[in-house]
């Protein structure tokens, strides 16, 4: 069992674990305060972090964010970059829910104004945004339509009238990841995704109606349309069964690829292939398709959320229109260029449970955001605060332009089910003025706030480190849980 004594603190909130393995190619680095470091030591997440330092081509250091927790293969809350073209890409470094991410919408209406209509809004959202495991959407796509979704993402939604130009401008990669080629997505993945567009799914996915509770940076918040007291809506979901199948297909296929390329790994879930190999390229093309599916999914859900607000609020209050602040991925592998030891280097950045947080001046941001940096969305656990941050130059220098992605679990699902009664939890949330509606009520306890770290503490660490700066805090008023 690891202890704090196995770590060296190289700066405030930055820890380097000792060399646990002889085959580490680079050091590992953990960003956390003492309490969050202690939480990370409660499971196998640090061992998993160290395992990722053995990947061929890994560069600089493997990074764990303060919300790190145990996953499978890679830890959740990790950033691992490999040098291209010879470095590897790993499907497990992205995970099964490819482009799981968060979208934030805001309105100019005060949260108090919609309070009398909140129950109706929740009912409407619940009907219009299908949730649950095998939930089916309102749209069943033909093969040709599915190909276009996979290759064009939110752009196809714009053409169909489910998105605005501004929505696309305020989406990572403008809602379309380059490199997508539907020829590398299996028939099985297509079958799973065909009728899942516009669905929330289950697990920790949600739609949340929030109130902007606190603004830390008035100037940046105003640029993003965020004002204290107003209504905000978050959507957290990903690529559904289609993405899960793409990951399964390639993790299975790469079991052979690692043998063919003579790659030795400490865990079979880390399987990988050189980025420029046939296998590496095919996975990248397929992953990009699943990522585009996820952007399109959140876009269609956005359309349905706007429709729900319209259904309930039209003619009753003004200015309830929801504008998009941003949409970010937190499970993705991306080709980027970063300055490393004085050189501009092309890398494949695996962010698994971490968020891109590009600072001011980045040419990949829309022109109107280039001087302030990229908005970063950090959802809390159910019933707790969420944060809007802004990307920073420090993140570009220290973490391949990355920051945390959420609160991070601290209690197992099995333990949460034993310790927390769902009816009590729902009553507690109601007592705090938070409405809850769940597609799968039996899983509610697993997502209880007690099962997660304190998101405010996580955000405080990244803010103090400068790898994401606080802009605003949101507090929930209603949750539609998947």
């Amino acid at each position, binding site marked *: 069992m690891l202890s704090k004594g196995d770590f060296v603190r190289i700066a405030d909130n930055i820890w380097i674990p000792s060399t646990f393995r002889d085959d580490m190619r680079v050091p590992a680095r953990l960003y956390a305060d003492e309490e969050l470091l202690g939480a990370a030591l409660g499971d196998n997440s640090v061992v998993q972090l160290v395992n990722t330092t053995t990947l061929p081509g890994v560069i600089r250091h493997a990074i764990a964010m303060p919300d790190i927790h145990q996953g499978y293969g890679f830890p959740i809350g990790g950033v691992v970059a490999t040098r291209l073209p010879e470095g590897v890409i790993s499907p497990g470094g992205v995970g099964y829910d490819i482009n799981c991410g968060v979208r934030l919408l805001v309105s100019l209406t005060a949260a108090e104004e919609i309070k009398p209509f909140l129950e109706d809004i929740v009912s409407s959202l619940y009907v219009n945004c299908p949730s649950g495991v095998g939930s089916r959407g309102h749209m069943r796509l033909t093969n040709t339509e599915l190909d276009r979704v996979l290759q064009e993402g939110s752009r196809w939604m714009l053409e169909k009238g489910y998105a605005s130009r501004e929505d696309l401008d305020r989406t990572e990669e403008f809602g379309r990841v380059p490199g997508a080629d539907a020829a590398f997505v299996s028939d099985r993945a297509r079958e*799973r995704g065909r009728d899942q567009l516009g669905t929330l799914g289950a697990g920790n996915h949600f739609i949340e109606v929030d109130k902007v509770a606190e603004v830390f940076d008035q100037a940046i918040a105003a640029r993003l349309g965020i004002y204290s007291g107003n209504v905000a809506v978050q959507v957290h979901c990903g690529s559904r069964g289609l993405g*899960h199948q793409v990951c399964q297909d390639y993790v299975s296929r790469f*079991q052979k690829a690692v043998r063919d390329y003579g790659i030795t790994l400490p865990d079979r879930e880390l399987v990988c292939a050189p980025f420029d190999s046939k296998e590496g390229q095919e996975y990248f093309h397929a992953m990009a398709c699943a990522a585009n599916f996820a952007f399109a999914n959140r876009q269609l859900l956005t359309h349905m959320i706007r429709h729900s607000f319209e259904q309930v609020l039209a003619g009753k209050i003004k200015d309830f229109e929801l504008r998009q602040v941003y949409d970010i991925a937190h499970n993705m592998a991306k080709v980027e260029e970063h300055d490393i030891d004085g050189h501009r280097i092309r890398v494949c950045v695996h962010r698994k449970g971490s968020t891109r947080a590009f600072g001011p001046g980045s040419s990949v941001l829309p022109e109107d955001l280039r001087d302030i940096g990229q908005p970063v969305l950090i959802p809390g656990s159910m019933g707790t605060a969420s944060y809007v941050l802004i990307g920073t130059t420090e993140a570009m220098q220290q973490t391949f332009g990355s920051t945390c992605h959420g609160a991070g679990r601290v209690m197992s699902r099995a333990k949460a089910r034993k310790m927390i009664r769902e009816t009590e939890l729902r009553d507690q949330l109601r007592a705090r003025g938070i409405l809850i509606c769940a597609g799968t009520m039996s899983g509610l306890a697993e997502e209880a706030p007690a099962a997660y770290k304190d998101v405010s503490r996580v955000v405080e660490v990244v803010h103090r480190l400068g790898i994401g700066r606080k802009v605003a805090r949101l507090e929930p008023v209603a949750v539609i849980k998947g």
Partner: protein
Amino acid sequence: MMSFEEIEHTADRAFRVKGRDLEGLLENAARAMQALDGVGPAGEPSATRDIEVEGVDRESLLVNWLNEILFLEETHQLVCERFHIYELNDCRLRARVETRECNESHTHIKAATFHNLKIRQTSAGLEAEIVLDV
């Protein structure tokens, strides 16, 4: 009595499963995963389904088999009640499963993973620990 026990895992679900031989392990693992997912029969018996799985070794066979069962559950809302594995070696499996319409799962298992997966020989047969992505 089920031949599995759940193992603590921070974010996902994990279980230890046993079987007298590979066939028993595969069958028990499928039942364990369905039990953890909270699915059970809730409708009419459905037609039998043929499952064919290949892998580079026994571990990959096990993972691919479980993912086939998940696919039937998510895409066709079917729970497997009886398993007839009629061809099996370390790299290939063919089976006929009897299925029934199922209730909605509680957990939403996305996939069976290879995380630290190793099928071990024990005095009573075979044993493996499997992590499921939730």
